[in-house]
C-alpha cells in the first residue's frame, strides 16, 4: 500500500517536473506562458514529491532494496508520463488546476 503511494508520488513528481518545462506546459496551457515563478514552484513541488516517494520506499524495505525499487519506479513513471503526454495530456490538468 505504501509502495503504491510511493509509485503515485514518483509519477506526480516527474509530472510536475515535466510541466515546469516550456514544451509540456504549452501542451496544457497553450495561451498562457509559463512564468519563471510557476516553473520554480513546479520544480520545487516535483522534487518534494520525488523525495517523499524515496522516503516511503525506505520506510517499507531495507535500504538496499528500497533504492532499487525507487529507481525502477521512476523509470516506469517516466515512461507512463511520456505516453500520457503523447496521447492524453489533458489527464495531467489537475496538477496545474491552480493556473486558470
Amino acid at each position, binding site marked *: 500500500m505504501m*509502495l503504491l503511494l510511493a509509485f503515485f508520488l514518483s509519477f506526480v513528481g*516527474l509530472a510536475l517536473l*515535466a510541466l515546469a*518545462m516550456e*514544451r*509540456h506546459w504549452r501542451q496544457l496551457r497553450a495561451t498562457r506562458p509559463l512564468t519563471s515563478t510557476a516553473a520554480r514552484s513546479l520544480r520545487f513541488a516535483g522534487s518534494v514529491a520525488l523525495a517523499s516517494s524515496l522516503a516511503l520506499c525506505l520506510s517499507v*524495505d*531495507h535500504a*538496499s*532494496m528500497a533504492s*532499487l*525499487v525507487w*529507481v*525502477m*519506479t*521512476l*523509470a*516506469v513513471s*517516466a*515512461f507512463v*508520463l*511520456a*505516453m500520457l*503526454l*503523447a*496521447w492524453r495530456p489533458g489527464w495531467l490538468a489537475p496538477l496545474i488546476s491552480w493556473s486558470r
Partner: protein
Amino acid sequence: MYQTFRQSMTWLHTWFGLVLGFVLIVVFFFGALSVFDREIDRWAQPATRFAPQPMPSFDHLLRPVFERITEPDPDAVELARSMVDGPLPEKYPVMDWSAYTTHRDPVLDTYVSFDVPNARNPDDHVHGHQTIDPRTGAQLSASDLKIGSEFFYPLHYSLHLEWMELGYWIVGFAALSMLAALVSGVVIHRKIFRELFTFRPQKQRQRVTLDLHNLTGVVALPFHFFFAFTGLVIFAGIYFPVSETQLRPLVEAHEQAEAAATGLPHDPAGVAAPLASVDAMVSDARRRWASRGMGGDVGFLFVNHVGDANGYVSIYRAGTDRIALTGQGIHYQASTGALIREDPPETAIASVNEFLTGLHLQHFRHWLLRFLYLFGGLAGCVCIATGFLFFVEKRKQQHARDGVAGARIVDALAIATITGTLIAALSMLVANRLLPEHLADRDEWQRNVFWMTWLASGVHAFWRSGFTQEGGAAPAWREQTLLVAVLAVAAPILNWLTTGDHLLATLETRYWPVAGIDLFLLATGVTASLIAHRLRRPALAHAHLATMKP
C-alpha cells in the same frame, strides 16, 4: 577518423549496436522471462503446481535423497572426460552435499559434488543432481524440462553455446558493448533532458522510432547500465580467470589461511566419521538468527567433506528480505553437531559484491520489484528493436536506389530476433503441452522445437523481406506477428485442455504462477493481433511495430 567526438560516437553506437544488438535483444528478452523463471517452470511442469515448500527435514528426508545420488549426471561425466588425460575413473568419491531453495520453489534442487581422482587439476569436480518433491523426497523425472530455469535462464547468459564457454564470452562482449552503447548514446543524444518525456507518435516513422528508442533507453538507463554491469561482475571469474592462472598460488594460500582463521577444514582428514543430526543444527541456527532479530528460513544447506572427520555443515539463511542471495552462515562440526563458527557481519567489499550480484539474480521476495525488472527488461528489448527499425528506416530508400541489400538484411535479422524469438519461445510452450507425457527424451524434443522454429522464422524473414529492398515494408513482419498471436492464445488453451487448470480456476484459487503466465500469454496474443491488424496498412507498418511488446 571523424571531425567531431559526437560523430565518432555515432559511428560506435550505430555499428556496435547493430552487430551486438542481435545478441543483446536475446539476452534482454530471456532475461526478462527469467524474472519469472520459477513461474514458467510451474506452467511447464503441471506435476509441480503446488505451494512453495521450506527446506525439508535433513535427517528424515534429505539424507536418503543424497545417499541415492551415487553417480555424476551423464553430462557431468562427459565434462569429466575433458578433465582427465587417461581413461575416466571407475568411481567418483563423494565430496559435498548441498540443497538450495528460495521462497518461490515448490521443488527442491539437491546436488552432490564428486571428486575426479585422476583429474589434471586436483580441484576439479563434477556434479550429480536431482530435483525432488520436498514433501515426499520423490525424484522428479530428469526429462521433465524446467523451461524457465533450465532453458530460458541459461539461454539468457550462455546462449546455450557451451563449447569453450563461447556463449558466455559472446554475451560478456555484448554486455561490455552495451555499456559503451549507453555512454555513446547519451553523448549523441542532443537533448537528453529537454526530450526526456518526449514521444511524438504523430510524426513520421523515422522520428517515432527514434523517440521511442530514446525514451526506452533513457528512462530505464540506470537499469540498463546496472544489469549490463552486474552481469559482467557475476561472470568476472570467467572473463578474468586470474584465480585459475597467474594468481593460483595466492588463491591456494588464501584458502589455507581462511581455513585456519575460520576453523573450517579445507581438506578432508581421510578418517571416516558419522554425521550427527543436521536437523538439530538447523534448529540451533534458527534460534541464533532469531536472537539477531531475523526471520529464519534456510536457503542453502551444505555438508562439506561428507563422511569425513573434518566434515562440517554450513547453514545459510535465505536472503528473502535482502538483496543478497543468502547470508548469516552458521557452521557446525558434522560428526558432533558442535558449533564451529558464526559468520561475522559482511565486510564492506563483500556486501557490495553481494548487492551487485544479488540485484541481478533477484532471489528476494518483492513482487513489485520483480515486475519493475520485467518492465526494465522489456524496455531494453523495445530500445534495441527500435534501434534496428531506425537503422532500416534511415537507409532503406537510399539502399533501394543503390540496389544494396544492407537494409533488407538488417530488417530480416530484426524480424528473426524480434518476432522470431517470440515464436520460438511460444512454440516451445505449445510443444510442452502437446508432446505425449511419457515420450522418451521429452526435454530434447522441446529444445529442438525451440531451435527449429527459430531457424524457420529466420528463413521466412529472409524470404519475405524482399520489399524492404525495394523501399517498402517486409510482409514477414505481419505474418510472424500473426503467428505470435495464434501461438500466444493457443498456449493457455492447451494448458486448460491438458491440465484442466483454466484461467477461471487458477484465478479463483489464486494460483498466481500459472494464472499470471496465462494472463501474460493472452495479453501478448491480444497485443500481437492488434499490431498485425495495424500492419495491414503499409504506411503505418513500421511506426506501430515500434510500440510492440517484445
